[in-house]
């Protein structure tokens, strides 16, 4: 009985640990309009500082540290891709330690819901 209790506790602990280690799985629907504002705000997303955005008229003079963001809606259309996109915004360094992209979620530059909003906006591009 005691052994069974311990085993059950271990299972619960294992499940809890695995859940804790999972990357962000949230697929909460964000607000694209709010996301657009956060995307541009210098002290929040400031995404145009590093990425060419659809509002940049030409590639010449557009920021080119990160990939251009046009077509992100199609590129990350699948739910798994969307999770990947969200995780990249949250902490890109987890997948690419040499990245220059700020860890928006990990360092609390954006809240989790603000990340959802930006993802929602990126889906419109």
């Amino acid at each position: 009985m005691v052994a069974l209790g311990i085993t059950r506790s271990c299972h619960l602990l294992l499940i809890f640990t695995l859940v804790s280690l999972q990357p962000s799985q949230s697929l909460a629907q964000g607000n694209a309009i709010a996301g657009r504002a956060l995307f541009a705000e210098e002290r929040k997303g400031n995404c145009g500082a590093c990425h060419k955005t659809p509002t940049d008229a030409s590639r010449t003079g557009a920021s080119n540290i990160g990939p251009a963001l046009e077509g992100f809606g199609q590129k990350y259309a699948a739910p798994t891709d969307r999770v990947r996109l969200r995780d990249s915004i949250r902490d890109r360094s987890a997948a690419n330690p040499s990245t220059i992209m700020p860890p928006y979620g990990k360092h609390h530059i954006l809240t989790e819901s603000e990340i959802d909003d930006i993802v929602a906006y990126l889906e419109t591009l």
Partner: protein
Amino acid sequence: MTSSLILKRCRPPYLSVTLGWVLGVCLLPLVSMAQTPSTPDQQRQSLVQALQKRIPGTNPADWVLGANPAVVVEAIPLNADNATNSADILAIGKKAWDRKFKNGKSLAICFPNAGKRVAATYPQFDAKARQVVTVEMAINKCLVLHGEPEIAAPNANLMGPLSAYFKSLSDGQRLTVRVGSVQAREKYDAGLMMFQRRIGQQDVACASCHVQNAGNIYQKQGLSAVIGQAVTWPRLQPGGRVIGLQAQFQRCMQRSGAEPFAVGSEELNNLEYFHAFMSNGLTMRALAVQR
């Protein structure tokens, strides 16, 4: 949100990283200069090669006015702003340089050859004081030695033009910063580490922009390469304000979401020591860049 809030929020733990964490996590993805027992000259050479791979067909002398003239030139030619030009600033600096102390002497007395061709050798390592001495510190040391009040480091209104004039006395000279002892090397290495250390809420290092992404465009402006940066400081800003190199270091740190070290602090002095060494051999051009 005010910048002070950002800084306050970012103080811990981002700047209080341990050395082991820095070595183990932060530096590996960046340039690997600190991981080989090479000399500063060899490290500089390997950095030149790395930057030439990033910006093909260019040489260190090309990077002085901006890393990638083919894309966007970071530097604006001098005198684009009609309000103030370098001559005005240098005249202010010369006046302060020539000002007689109460004892009848002036700043020129403290430097060989009355200061001509001297600033090109700064920062220097002072073996007695066991610290890096910048141009601004040398000026203040002279003032104090002759019973004059020192100029507060952030006082750009006076120290900016004064250091610009002192540096202009070396215009045309090649920058020759020396790292000539084990103790000096320690300071250089500390500066290198600071250059490579990821800091702040944005989690970036100096090297992230000025090595890894030199020549790329950030916020519509080309990112300059670390090599070539040191020879044009101080800089004249639109409106006539002179900004020193360490004040620019502070700006970068603030932009990274970190609380900056003070101008004249050991951390920024060491960083300036490493940073200047990387531009060794390039021609001094004080106030050559306005931005």
